[in-house]
């Protein structure tokens, strides 16, 4: 069953058309790698799935509701189901690692403090940084920070996880630990949309590929078909550069 449907999603910044009437479907359990050259609208697409950015026209149907038409309060609720991980981690520097994960549990979900602490620690353990609960993000390595950010999103128990180039800001030696965390998540059956330039990850972990170029999106239901036989010049050029 489709958990998310994108219908004629169109985005213009002034005269600049960034997304050209995109249509796509996400099934529960899908791991979708969104690939494409930079500046082609990958981030924009991702950010329009939880209304951090509003589309110019079109619909995003999440669990049978068009969330482009949801109220502000409704969106606050919907966003809890759509976890997001950013290229630049965006941890809250004024809070400890534990509080970074906890605060949305207590303030947004209204969960009691000790329960929230337990949940937060559980997810920090899962991503392998539970020994850092009391330090501030600035004293963590990039890889550790990104794993805390993943724990922070996961703790909200989302139905879909959106990743926007989660490893692009990392030193090469740290890319692996974050990809490992994401790989485990995929194996657990989490529905994931991952904007990435990690071709290995896309090939091995993704169940589908969305290839974006100049605001157009082509969906491949099988990663192999994309990598072996992209049958579009733009995809071929992209792959030639990346591999």
């Amino acid at each position: 069953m489709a958990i998310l449907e994108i219908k004629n999603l169109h985005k213009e910044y002034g005269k600049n058309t960034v997304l050209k009437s995109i249509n796509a479907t996400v099934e529960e359990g899908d791991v979708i790698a969104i690939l494409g050259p930079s500046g082609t609208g990958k981030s924009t697409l991702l950010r329009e799935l939880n209304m951090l950015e509003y589309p110019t026209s079109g619909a995003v149907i999440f669990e049978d509701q068009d969330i482009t038409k949801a109220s502000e309060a409704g969106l606050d609720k919907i966003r809890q189901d759509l976890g997001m991980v950013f290229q630049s981690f965006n941890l809250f520097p004024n809070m400890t690692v534990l509080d970074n994960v906890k605060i949305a549990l207590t303030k947004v979900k209204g969960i009691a403090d000790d329960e929230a602490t337990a949940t937060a620690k559980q997810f920090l353990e899962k991503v392998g940084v539970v020994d850092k609960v009391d330090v501030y993000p600035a004293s963590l390595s990039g890889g550790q920070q990104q794993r805390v950010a993943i724990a922070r999103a996961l703790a909200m128990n989302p139905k879909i996880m959106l990743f926007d180039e989660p490893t692009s800001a990392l030193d090469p030696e740290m890319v692996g630990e974050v990809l490992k965390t994401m790989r485990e998540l995929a194996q657990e059956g989490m529905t994931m949309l991952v904007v990435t330039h990690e071709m290995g990850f896309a090939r091995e972990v993704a169940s589908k590929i969305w290839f974006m170029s100049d605001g157009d999106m082509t969906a491949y239901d099988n990663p192999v078909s994309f990598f072996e036989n992209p049958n579009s010049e733009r995809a071929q050029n992209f792959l030639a550069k990346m591999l």
Partner: protein
Amino acid sequence: MNKWIKKLIMLVMAFGLVMSSGMGMLNMHTVNAEETDPTLERIKKSGKLVVGTSADYAPYEFHTTEHGKDKIVGFDIEAAREIGKQLGVKTEIQEMSFDALLGAVKTGKVDVVVAGMTETPERAEEVNFSKPYFVDKNVVLTLKQNKEKWSTLKQIRQAKLAAQVSSKQDDIAHDITDKKVVSLKKITDEVTQLNQEKVDGVVVASTTAKSYLEQSDQFAVSPAKLPGISNGSSVVMNKNATVLQSKVNKILDDHIIGEPLQKMQDDAIELMNKKESFVSKYSPYFVKGTLYTIGLAVIGVFFGIILGILFALMKLSSIKVFKWLASAYIEAVRGVPLLIQVFIVYFGTQAIGLHISSFLAGAIAMFLNSAAYVAEIIRSGIQAVPDGQTEAARSLGFTKSQTMRYMILPQAIKNILPALGNEFVTVIKEGSVVSVIGVGELTFQTSVVQGASFKPFIPLIITAVIYFILTFGISRLLNLFEKKLRKSDKTLG
């Protein structure tokens, strides 16, 4: 025995009560239109005579220190107190600049003005004058070494003269010289200018000149006889104060004019020439000035922050009108010198019928000004928090206001606080500007001391040191505070 005394006292009291109320009734019956007027009524009702004066006109009225306390004295003040005494009320002195006096008496801010003021036809249209209680002629005060240069009216035509702005002497000065007249607010400033040879002479009342002669031997009075009638000093009151006017005239005749006034003048001149060390005589001015300066800065920044937060929020809001209003205000305030803003508030409030003290006007101008800068500090402090913080918070389901509260503001505060500290230091320094409207802060007091002590330089140095201690001290304190803030926040360490 005891019981009897008690009863007796009660009886006396009861009798007294009946008598006094009876007398009161009697009084009520005999009251008619000619026995009172609104001003007199107000004086009687409040039990005090509020006297407006401009205490920079020795020996008429001037500041002195007594037991380390600042006090307004002078023969005008003594005369005013005598009038109060004869009216059977307390006397309260209220100081303001000379050109604000007429407005004050017209609006009822003060009951009378006793400030060596001379009746002129223009003034007489606005207010009532008593008979002159003292007639003084005007002279030109010069430096002794230039005495020969300015001894005739013909020579004086080439002299650069100073006089108190909008005073009778000012008019005379304009008449007797061909050069441009320097009109200053304070006699002390004029004398300082004379001292520094920035002007050749000062047109003053001869009484004033005399006291300067006694105080220092560097001055001389030009023998030239100035044209025009000599100026008599009258008590000034509201147009409606007709009964008060005749009462005051009678008090002047019976209790002031002649011998009593002579004694008051002698006392005043003696007070004026009282020898005292510079420190004990003038330190109260610096202390008072410093307190005013700090007070102004505290008020300025405190209300500036409140208003500044409002403007910052308006500027950051998504409502176009708010955005536009806030931007317009901020740009306007930042684009106009503080001096002009001070004048606009001071005269603007007057023009719309709000009679506020110069301190209040100064404080308002300061915080209206500061608000614009604080708004920018807050806005940029908030905007300096990366967008990613908002996105992360919103993606977790935080509402807009929760995001502001838990993520943006705690981080913005760290950018804002140090900048606000700097703003406080700036406001302390810029507060000097409000001295122009007679707010008794440090810079104002400095010029008072400069004039009164005939020392133009030392007071400046003292003031500079005080400003430096204030600003440097506050900067150090803020640094310590900032360090502490940093320590508790390992993200910056």
